[in-house]
């Protein structure tokens, strides 16, 4: 049994420390500083997996904590960027709504399976990585409208696919 108080989860939790300086940078109009904190937050997301491997402390809780941290950090940053006019509002609303829908579906899937489990979606992993990039594009003023509007249909397709897999298709390992 792996304790939830392990180095990998500490790295995951440290990502929240990027949020206050990020808000400070956006509030002051410092695009480069805001980009720096987005990059640090994104890199820490990669480092926690590495730390879990090195210290052999992988756990279901760690996976869920990582996914929840992704949602909170990226969702919060997107809201801040939209509020300050650095990102287009409609795609941000669409992304957050779809993200919340996906989280709800994962909870339902976990109930279907009968134990805490995170549905492994190869497509959603890529969408989450794209979300991190969206933050960087918005803070860096780099083709913001293009990247945000291209993202929405991709995320719709992935959420529809994952909805079918989680709610309709048979649960892996079940006899049904």
């Amino acid at each position: 049994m792996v304790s939830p108080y392990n180095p990998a989860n500490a790295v995951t939790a440290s990502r929240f420390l990027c949020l206050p300086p990020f808000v400070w940078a956006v509030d002051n109009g410092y695009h480069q500083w805001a980009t720096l904190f987005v990059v640090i937050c994104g890199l820490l997301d990669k480092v926690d997996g590495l730390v879990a491997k090195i210290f052999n402390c992988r756990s279901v809780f760690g996976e869920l904590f990582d996914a929840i941290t992704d949602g909170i950090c990226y969702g919060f940053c997107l809201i801040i960027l939209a509020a300050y006019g650095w990102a287009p509002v409609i795609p941000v609303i669409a992304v957050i709504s779809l993200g919340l829908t996906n989280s709800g579906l994962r909870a339902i899937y976990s109930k279907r399976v009968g134990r805490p489990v995170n549905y492994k979606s190869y497509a959603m992993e890529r969408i989450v990585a794209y979300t991190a990039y969206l933050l960087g594009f918005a803070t860096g003023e780099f083709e913001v409208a293009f990247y945000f509007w291209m993202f929405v249909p991709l995320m719709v397709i992935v959420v529809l696919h994952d909805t079918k897999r989680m709610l309709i298709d048979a649960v892996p390992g079940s006899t049904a």
Partner: protein
Amino acid sequence: MNDQLVSHTVFVWFLTLFTGIVAFTWFVYDAIKLLRLRKEDGRDPVVHDKRFGYGIGVVIGAVGVLGVLKYHLA
């Protein structure tokens, strides 16, 4: 407190290279993984999920490269 870490030109090229290199690598990496799954049984849910995921990865990689080209060529 300085509001800029580097000059605007350096910042733009940092974003360009960071996005372009990662997006292109992502495109090639997922395309190779997708090709390797050609002979696998598509009725297997895991294989199906992988194919779909790698396909999305290829599209995202292409979007990343297109955005960089659009920024510099438009």
